[in-house]
């Protein structure tokens, strides 16, 4: 077996989306020599697909906005399951993180007085999303990418080497977080996708910023990279995953043609005035406003329509409820036989805005429907339905430092981290989360790396084990001598998760899913690939399967355990939100790898009480709907 080359860095950031790049910028500016490693080309990460905007209470569109209002909206959206300290830090720091982007060259859409324009979005009380048309994620990733280039230019001027202090290893995959003999983080085991060559990045601090898990589901808005790598790396390194039962199904994905099913239709369509209708032409969302939100949403179409012009004296239309509510409503309408021809509902802007306005405000959507579905959204409605979009669950971290609980030297930020969004994320809170906690992870990783943590090399045995694991698919035949096709396994996994642990869940189906996952896990050990290690997609997929199977089991196991419905977890057999479950977090950890029970064990924890000054931001009548008796009187 070939020897893996070793390189020494201070901080290794896994993932080059918004969180990873923001972490890398911070770590490098704090003096840490920083390596970023990503599966795609630099600048292609899934963040580019974010459309609507970055939530930050700058108050440019409505001076009534401030961090407390943003905090309140975030907690309501997450049905009070959020790690409240994360939600607080997020709401407080988001404006600074957005303004800072302008100093790095970002160009947001403007208000009349020249400030950053802010748009309405589901669950946000005021217009709050800084945006660039409907391509905000692209602006974010490009700005961070260009900031990294500018730091590299500084280093080139100083020492003649662009990559002396900040280097991007693009099209490389990390398969293991390595640890030293003391159990501290020691680096990552990686391979180059282009050549298949193995290498080790040794560093005392590793930041996971790998995004989500959507590729375990069949209908998803997520790109191929979203195979739960960071979630799995953290589990395997001894960390816990929290809130994994909460998976967000975005209410509006494309439903036709089949090959594009799941591609995102931005929430801005509704934020800017688009409405949902069923096959009878009814704006059905008025029938689906849940009790906890009754007094905050319009009761008639007239009131909802007036709100766009006069938000102070009218309530918002129910199309702008949090995503979990809208997705469930669409699901119910389709089930009741009031769906569109291709099994979705109608989303219409054509009767709500002039064609020119639609093309200007929603250029990507106009383009996407025209090119992929032959639909002109300025003249006819879109057909949309729920699509797997985001996982609220992730690595359990310390709120302030983003350090994984129980694994010194391991940090996580962005979608791979859990807790911030509770049971359901509000639109626009993802891009702000990336920036706020990406920066924090970079800051504390750099601080940790410069601290007293001794740098002992990763033991050879670990590197050899990681290499052997990565090569297994080339000798993949099982005892029967037959190799499993990784593409087939992946399709079966996606179908299983979609059908059995999807938007509406039932106990028996989740048990069935766990049995199927156990079978797939056994078969995946026999996954075999043809060809050699050079840019071999079959091999890459065979390795990603380990991660997808791990996170899928976390989702299924936690979903089976939580016997209530809340946010992104809806159980047909347990339809009510139970106040007793509010304080309960389910933590997933690795079980005995060869256990017949599965690979994941669950632990229950009780969350810390919400700090009293934060609780006092809410009315007592509202808190009664969420909090258990004893919490109210503490």
């Amino acid at each position: 077996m070939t020897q893996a080359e070793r390189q020494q860095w201070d901080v290794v950031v896994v993932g080059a989306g918004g969180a990873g790049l923001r972490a890398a910028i911070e770590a490098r500016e704090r003096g840490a020599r920083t390596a970023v490693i990503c599966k795609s080309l630099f600048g292609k990460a899934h963040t580019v697909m974010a459309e609507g905007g970055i939530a930050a209470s700058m108050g440019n569109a409505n001076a009534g906005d401030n961090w407390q209002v943003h905090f309140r909206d975030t907690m309501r959206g997450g049905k009070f399951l959020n790690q409240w300290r994360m939600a607080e830090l997020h709401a407080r720091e988001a404006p600074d993180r957005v303004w800072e982007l302008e100093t790095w060259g970002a160009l947001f859409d403007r208000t009349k007085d020249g400030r950053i324009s802010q748009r309405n979005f589901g669950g946000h009380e005021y217009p709050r999303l800084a945006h660039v048309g409907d391509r905000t994620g692209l602006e974010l990733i490009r700005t961070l990418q260009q900031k990294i280039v500018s730091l590299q230019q500084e280093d080139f001027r100083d020492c003649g080497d662009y990559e002396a202090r900040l280097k991007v290893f693009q099209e490389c995959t990390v398969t293991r977080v390595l640890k030293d003999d003391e159990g501290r983080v020691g680096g990552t085991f990686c391979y180059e996708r282009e050549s298949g060559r193995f290498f080790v990045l040794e560093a005392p601090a590793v930041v996971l910023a790998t995004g989500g898990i959507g590729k375990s589901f069949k209908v998803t808005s997520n790109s191929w990279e979203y195979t739960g790598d960071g979630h799995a790396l953290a589990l395997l390194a001894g960390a816990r995953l929290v809130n994994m039962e909460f998976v967000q199904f975005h209410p509006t994905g494309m439903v036709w043609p089949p090959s594009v099913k799941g591609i995102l239709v931005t929430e801005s369509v509704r934020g800017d005035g688009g409405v949902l209708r069923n096959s009878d032409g009814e704006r059905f969302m008025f029938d689906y406003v849940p009790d906890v939100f009754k007094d905050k949403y319009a009761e008639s179409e007239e009131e909802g329509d007036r709100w766009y012009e006069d938000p102070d004296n009218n309530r918002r239309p129910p199309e702008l409820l949090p995503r979990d509510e809208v997705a469930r409503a669409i699901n119910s309408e389709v089930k009741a036989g009031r769906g569109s021809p291709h099994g979705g509902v109608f989303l219409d802007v054509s009767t709500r805005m002039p064609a020119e306005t639609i093309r200007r405000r929603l250029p990507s959507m106009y383009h996407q429907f025209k090119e992929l579905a032959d639909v002109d959204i300025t003249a006819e409605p879109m057909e949309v339905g729920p699509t797997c979009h985001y996982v609220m669950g992730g690595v359990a971290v310390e709120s302030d430092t983003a350090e994984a609980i129980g694994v010194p030297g391991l940090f996580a930020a962005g979608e791979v981290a859990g807790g911030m969004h509770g049971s359901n994320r509000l639109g626009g809170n993802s891009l702000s989360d990336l920036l706020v906690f990406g920066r924090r992870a970079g800051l504390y990783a750099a601080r940790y790396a410069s601290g007293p943590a001794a740098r002992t090399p990763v033991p050879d045995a670990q590197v050899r084990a990681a290499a052997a694991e990565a090569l297994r698919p080339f000798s993949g035949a099982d005892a029967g001598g037959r190799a499993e096709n990784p593409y087939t396994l992946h399709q079966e996994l996606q179908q299983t998760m979609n059908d059995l642990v999807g938007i509406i869940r039932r106990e028996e189906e989740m048990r069935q899913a766990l049995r199927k996952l156990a079978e797939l896990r056994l078969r995946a050990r026999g996954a075999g690939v043809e060809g050699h290690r050079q840019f071999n997609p079959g091999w890459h997929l065979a390795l990603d399967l380990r991660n997808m199977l791990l996170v899928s089991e976390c989702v299924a196991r936690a979903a089976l355990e939580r016997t209530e419905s809340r946010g992104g977890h809806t159980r047909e057999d347990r339809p009510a939100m139970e106040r007793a479950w509010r304080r309960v977090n389910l933590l997933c950890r690795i079980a005995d790898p060869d256990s017949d029970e599965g690979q994941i064990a669950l632990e229950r924890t009780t969350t810390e009480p919400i700090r009293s000054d934060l609780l006092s931001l809410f009315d007592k009548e509202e808190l009664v709907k969420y909090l258990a008796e004893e919490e109210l009187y503490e």
Partner: protein
Amino acid sequence: MTGYDASFRVWRGDPDGGALKDFTVEVNEGEVVLDIIHRLQATQAPDLAVRWNCKAGKCGSCSAEINGRPRLMCMTRMSVFSREEVVTVTPLRAFPVVRDLVTDVSFNYEKAREVPSFVPPPGVAPDEYRMQQIDVERSQEFRKCIECFLCQDTCHVVRDHEENKTAFAGPRFLMRIAELDMHPLDAAEESGLDRKRTAQEDHGLGYCNITKCCTEVCPEQIRITDNALIPLKERAVDRKYDPLVWLGDKITRRRS
């Protein structure tokens, strides 16, 4: 439309050489070329190398040449071809092949590093940036770029002239210079950096003879030539020294 079997010819090989390989493969309603490439991977050629990511026309990863034309595979619908037509998919010609449809695009990342970055205006606090929509729109058009590098691939200055690569940044990065030059708050000039001059002297603006090939292949429909390159040329040199600017005016009949 029901499913049918299409004839595909896909280039397979590596830096040592390769050839077009014929496949017969199922096509269903609404599919794009990338769907067909994925079906080949799943059923006939598991190690077929292809770069892709979002499959929604937003990331610019799946660039290739389809029947000789640079395009995104995820945004090329099969319905643009007749059922009888053979669809030929080859890697981007201007960049070295890594394997099959994957090319080494590092040229672009090297050029990106050579363009001086945004210079923030001194003394303006982060929350004090004030710009009018009409003033940011010009640069915003260029920031729609998804870096698919189709313009870099098609530009004849480098497409068949490897020797020009050192001196020429290509349309994407000349457009980046134009974007920064038109940024309302970029303080390059105050810091002693003349972006127009560097475009001409360091990044090969003069090589561009505005044939608009880049604009034609841009999947974001950015008017690279008209809105970025020609204005940059105008700013870069006095008109009488660049006949192409004069010619450009004639061709596009822009307002003065």
